[in-house]
Each structure stands twice: as C-alpha cells, then as structure tokens.
C-alpha cells in the first residue's frame, strides 16, 4: 500500500525529561485574568539557527507533554512515539518538536489539582473555566519563551486538532501550516452528550464532594466510568469485534454482574488504570472546554479562515464515528471557500477515533511529505 516502510519501532528520541515554564498568567477567553500558569513541556530534536523548524504537537483529552521517547528509569514511550523521532513523520533529525501539557491538565501544567497560591490549597472548583483557545494562548507564551517567531506546523488529533485550529485562526501569522487530525471545528450535540454523561458519572460519585476531594478519597469510580464511556466512543464496532468478539473471560464468577465478556474486562481495566494517572476535576474542565469549542464563534467558518496564508492538511478516518468525516470535510470546505490551501485525506481505517494514534504508516506518509514540501 504505502511504498516507504517506516522504522517506527526502532528510532526513538531516547531518554527525555519534562521541563516547566512558569509565567505570570493570561487573560482567559472569559475575560478573567488567571495566573500564575505553569506549563509542563518536552522538546525533541534541535532548533535550527533560523528557528524555522519548530513543530508544536498538541495532545488530546487524556494526553500529556510526554509525546516521545522514554523517561529515565521508565519504559513507557510517549503517546505519539511512533510518529516522533529520527526518520519518523516528525523527523527529529530535521525538526524541533515541542509538546506541552494543556492548561487545565494534571500532568505538570496548572490545573484544578494545582495549588492555588492564594489559599495554599488545590484550586478544585475555584479553577476558572478554560477554553481550547486559552490552552492555545498559554502554548503561545511557551513558544515565545522558546524564542520561536513562527512555527513550521501545529498538529494534533482530536482535542489536539482543535488547538491546532485555534492556532491557525487566532495566530495565523505564527504558523506556516496546521494539521488538524480526526477533529472538528465545533463540538456537536452528540459529542457534548457523551462528555456530559462522563461528567455526570464523576459528579455522582460521593467521593467527588463538589470537587474538594484532594487529600482524601478521590472519585475513582466516577472517573473510571467516564473513561469507559470515552473508550467506547474511541473504538468502532469493527475494532471491538476484532479485538474482543464475544469472547468470555475465564475467571470464576464472583457475583452475577462480574465482567463476563472480554470487552467488559477491557473497559474496567482501562477505567481503573486511568484513575491512577488522571484528575477527575481536570476531566470536568477539559471536557467542558471541548464542548464549548466552536472556532467560528457562530460566524461562517470560511469567513474566519479568510486571508490565512498557512497551508492545511486535514486528516480523518473513515470509521471514526465520534469525530465523523463530515466534520473534517467541513473544515476542508471552509478552507477551499476562503482560499486557504488545504489537502484532505480520509484514511480507510477500522480503528475508529483511536486511529489517529494507530494508523502510523498512512499518517507518516501524508505528514512526512506535507512537511517536507513546506521546507
């Protein structure tokens, strides 16, 4: 199918370390001033003398700054390790790749679980409502701090794609290209609905205690259920059938509603694992930011994109029913109408929304060539 094989398994960026950038704060989209803000970030590759080879990689809902390589003493690779490294799509021999944890997150950046300097306690629900644009505003501060005037590209899947669109629309002069993957220009009612069920699960957990659970038991059950719902929407009917079938687990029945089927066990495992690494309040804040996202702010999308010189590569996946093709096509159409140079490809994948993390060969081909032709 694709001519060039890629050695995604082999070429790692090696041992990496998170860094932290703290700044006074920023004016949120809501008008509120918020600070100080810390962003956790990692970088891979070397910034060239002209500072023209920087690519900002943007993570999805549950992602973090650790996109590639491994941390000292740990062997878990970054969430997009197959895409970032020497000879990979984001070739670290050529490009300087930056990934930061979003504002509102819980992996080193300021979020609801961070200490509020005014009270010396975690913010919890005193944390302000943030938006995708606020996440991008914070990233812009980081990029400026790194001395970069103009990014070669901003790229991300899902929520990362929304941040890429935010960069494209709000800072068009700061990016030479944008690669929104498996994403949308605005959250649909269905997407909002799934997120709302997740939030209700968290808030229904008695341990949530209006968000003030820090230092005590955390709402693990609620967060795990939210994650389970998420995982269902990230897969497809086909990928579930292929992965689990109607296979039953062989463990003995403890009670009537034990997880009998493989798929049940998988979801429970995913849910239970997630609570170890994610903060429930962050989940609430970030999903709200997703739901409020509408890059066109009620205007015509094509009007919002008018005059943008950056090139755009829109990638979607045929079996993605959470961010269906029509949403990517809408981005593409708006680009065409506004005269923005845009390429669009719908990759034939059965993985559902998760495909953006899994269809490495196809993405590598598209993104690799797209970036090469920008230089």
């Amino acid at each position, binding site marked *: 199918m694709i001519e060039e094989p890629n050695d995604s398994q082999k070429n790692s960026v090696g041992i990496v370390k998170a860094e932290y950038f703290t700044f006074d704060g920023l004016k949120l989209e809501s008008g509120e001033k918020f600070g100080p803000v810390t962003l956790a970030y990692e970088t891979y590759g070397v910034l060239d003398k002209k500072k023209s080879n920087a690519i900002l990689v943007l993570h999805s809902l549950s992602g973090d700054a650790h996109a590639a390589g491994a941390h000292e003493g740990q062997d878990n690779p970054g969430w997009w390790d197959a895409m970032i490294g020497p000879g990979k799509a984001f070739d670290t021999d050529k490009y300087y790749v930056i990934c930061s944890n979003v504002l509102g997150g819980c992996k080193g950046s300021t979020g609801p679980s961070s200490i509020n300097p005014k009270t010396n306690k975690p913010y919890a629900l005193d944390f302000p409502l943030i938006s995708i644009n606020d996440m991008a505003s914070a990233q812009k501060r980081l990029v400026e701090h790194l001395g970069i005037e103009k990014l070669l590209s901003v790229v991300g899947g899902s929520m990362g794609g929304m941040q890429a669109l935010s960069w494209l629309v709000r800072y068009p002069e700061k990016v030479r290209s944008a690669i929104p993957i498996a994403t949308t220009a605005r959250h649909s009612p269905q997407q909002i609905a799934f997120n709302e069920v997740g939030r209700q699960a968290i808030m229904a957990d008695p341990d949530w205690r209006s968000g003030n659970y820090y230092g005590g038991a955390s709402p693990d059950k609620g967060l795990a259920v939210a994650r389970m719902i998420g995982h269902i929407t990230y897969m497809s009917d086909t990928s579930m059938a292929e992965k689990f079938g109607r296979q039953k687990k062989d463990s003995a029945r403890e009670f009537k509603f034990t997880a009998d089927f493989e798929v049940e066990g998988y979801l429970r495992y995913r849910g239970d694992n997630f609570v170890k690494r994610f903060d429930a309040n962050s989940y609430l804040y970030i999903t709200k930011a997703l739901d409020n996202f509408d890059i066109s702010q009620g205007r015509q999308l094509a009007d919002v994109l008018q005059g943008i010189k950056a*090139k755009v590569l829109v990638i979607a996946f045929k079996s993605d029913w959470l961010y269906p093709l029509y949403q990517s096509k809408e981005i593409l159409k*708006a680009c065409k109408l506004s005269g923005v140079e*845009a*390429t*669009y*490809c719908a990759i034939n994948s059965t993985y559902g929304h998760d495909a953006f993390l899994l269809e490495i060969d196809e993405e590598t081909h*598209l993104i690799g060539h797209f970036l*090469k032709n920008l230089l």
Partner: protein
Amino acid sequence: MPNENIKPDHKIILQLINPHSSVLDLGCGTGELLHLLAQKKGARVQGIEIDEQAIYKCVAKGLTVTQGDIDSGLAEYNSKSFDYVILNQSLQQVRHVDSVLKDALRVGKKVIVGFPNFAYYKARWQMFFKGTAPVAGALPFQWYETPNLHFLSISDFANYCRVRKINVEQVICIGKDGRVWFFPNLFAQTGIFLISE
C-alpha cells in the same frame, strides 16, 4: 523530464493552458498531469480524487489535493475561482454528467474535457464484426471491469455542447501518435475539448 515521457493527452493539455494559471483537476488520479502543469507551466494546481492510494501519491508529489467524489458537487469552490477546471478521462466515469459539467463550468473560467472516443474505428470494428464490446485504444477495459459509466464519441460530445449551449473554444483529437485531423470521430482515440460557459 524528457518530453517523450509525457502522455499525448497531457501534452495537449499542457499546450492549452496559459502559464501561471490556476488549475483544478477533477479526478486527478496520482497527480501526474497536475505535477506537469506545476513544473512546466508554473500553474497553481489543486486536485480532487476519490481513491485514497492515489491521494498518497499526490501528496508525495507535494500537491494540494482533496479526497472526494466529484459527483457530489463542487459546492466548496467559488464561482470562477480557477482559470481552468480539468476533467481528463474522468467525465465518462461520473454518474451525473450534467451536474458535474455545470459545476465545472461555474468554478472554472474554462473547462478542459478529455475522454476516450467510443467511435474510434477499432472499437467500431469490434462491435460490427466481432459483436463484442470494444476493447481498443483509450478503451482498454473489458466490459465487466470498466470504470466507465458513459460511452460517448467525439461527435456525441460536440452535439451535447450544442444542445446545452456550451461554448466550444477548441477541439483537439488525438491518436496514439499525436493529433488526428482526418475524420477524427473515426480515427481519434481521445477527444479533448476546451469549453466555457
């Protein structure tokens, strides 16, 4: 790229297009023609192609392409936003010829249509003497595997343009060795029309 490697229909289209024009190729395949137009004519090119694997080849050539079905229309393109819209070897494969052509004529100041001539003498020969569906010239497919939905001749398309009041600016008919001047509807394998609204 030496001239000899350029396909005869591509050669004609290269000649038809003014340097530095904007071009939209509907059904651009692997982007061969667009690449030529960009390289040799300095054209600003874009393409639409339905096949995913072909899209990968286009992207590898550095082309701006959209994966899509030209049958579903060109709603996302503004009127007269391209100097040329090309339908080369693709019109006979679309379902809705009328609406695709209408949209192409709206979006492009001029439209170039290239198609296999069904009235090519070898095709006629096969039909008449062998009684089989033609596999000849620019019609290399067996009846059961052809992507073509419409079978038209150079005369058919000329008549069509007359009926639809489409302005025919130029007709170029070619065989495997270049232009055909003598009874083109009989001896040409491919017809290329430059048309406008």
